[in-house]
């Protein structure tokens, strides 16, 4: 049996509130604000308080989804990536690179965010890159 | 028990700044329709004298 509280930073906005993830036997069971983190001083907003809910949510995607005839259907990674790459190339060709914008997330790693902005600027050729922490 | 809960609620209302007289508890037999009517009519009169609900005024503001 193991019960730990892991100190981490909230994945939502740019405030960077310190929060504790309650982990019982390897499973996330709750969230508490960190009383010793200077950014939030033991307080959280509703998004921070419910961090553990989205992590263990049954609604999380487990397969790529592609919209076919108006409805989202499960697809393989190969199919999804081919469609995405193909359509982006088409749109860039037809409307120019600035017609494409990309929005990244604090729930991604720094490395993933770096990769996306590199892809956006170098591969697509536009500066239209932003991040959910700015919202 | 209900009387005690009423007292509790009235004191809490007072502490929150709402006139406790806006809450009233009366026992009326279900067989006594006229007494029921009298109670409600009287309470309505008394409430009118107290003026509109102060919370409504705040909401409108």
């Amino acid at each position, binding site marked *: 049996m193991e019960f730990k509280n892991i100190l981490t930073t909230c994945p939502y906005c740019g405030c960077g509130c310190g929060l504790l993830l309650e982990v019982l036997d390897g499973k996330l069971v709750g969230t*508490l604000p960190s009383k010793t983190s200077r950014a939030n001083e033991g307080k959280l907003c509703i998004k921070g308080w419910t961090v553990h809910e989205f992590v263990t949510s049954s609604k999380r995607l487990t397969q790529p989804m592609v919209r076919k005839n108006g409805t989202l259907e499960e697809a393989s990674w190969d199919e999804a990536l081919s469609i995405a790459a193909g359509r982006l190339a088409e749109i860039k060709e037809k409307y120019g690179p600035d017609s494409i914008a990309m929005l990244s997330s604090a729930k991604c790693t720094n490395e993933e965010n770096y990769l996306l902005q590199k892809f956006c600027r170098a591969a697509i050729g536009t500066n239209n890159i932003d991040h959910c922490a700015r919202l | 028990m209900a009387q005690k809960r009423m007292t509790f609620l009235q004191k809490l209302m007072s502490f929150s700044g709402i006139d406790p007289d806006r809450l009233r508890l009366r026992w009326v037999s279900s067989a006594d329709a006229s007494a029921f009517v009298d109670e409600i009519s009287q309470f309505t009169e008394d409430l009118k004298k107290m003026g509109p609900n102060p919370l409504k005024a705040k909401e409108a503001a």
Partner: protein
Amino acid sequence: MSTTVKVYVEQLLDEGKIKGFLGLREENGHIMPHLFCSPEDLVHMSLGDNTRPGDARYPLNQLLITLAAKYPDDTFAVLVRGCDERGLKELFKWEQLREEKVIPVGIGCPDELAKACECEKPFPDALIEGPQGQKADSENVAHVDGMDLDTRLEFWLGEFDRCIKCFGCRNVCPMCFCNECALQEESLVGTGKIPPDNPTFHLTRAVHMAGRCIDCGLCEEACPADIPLRTLYKKVADIVHEAFGYRTGYELDKKSPFNIIGGL
């Protein structure tokens, strides 16, 4: 201050009396709840004092309920201050924890903290270490009582106006364990607006704190808007005492009047 507690817990662990001790741990300057299962681990133990006494307190009873639900046959020790012990006594009566499965490890609060909390009893009966502090007077409640009715309304509506409906007060509360919370019931509290129904949201919570609130102050500490929740809930406790003769968390054999269906 923590030597006596450490020795006491070590003994409990060595004698196999407990599966673990639910207390606080210090790591890299941060304090957080932790379940200590071996005596060697206790070197990281903290009592919840960061820069000021008691400023790193957590709702340990709430975490204990989670543990006990998964391990109902195991006995746990838990770090308790005066307020936490009041919480335990109520939780036993509300059947969220079993008395025979919980060993309280009590610490007393210093004057500075007791005064800041305006605490009725800043030490638990099961006191292992720390002072048996004095009861502190409540000035905050008296201050609001001294206002006239209209001023009071303006005061409270003003305070509640800053609420961002983070549910921090409810989430951090060691006494809130309802599976379906009235505050999330759309027919009682409207959704989709900030601040939430003023004063419905907060008065609803206050009524639900009757006979339940142990005055630990974690709600006010968790409020990002600095709403004086404690003052409101302290008044509720006073009214319950006046109307029902009941004080929350002091007796093991007398249930709260709100814990009895059908009446007294």
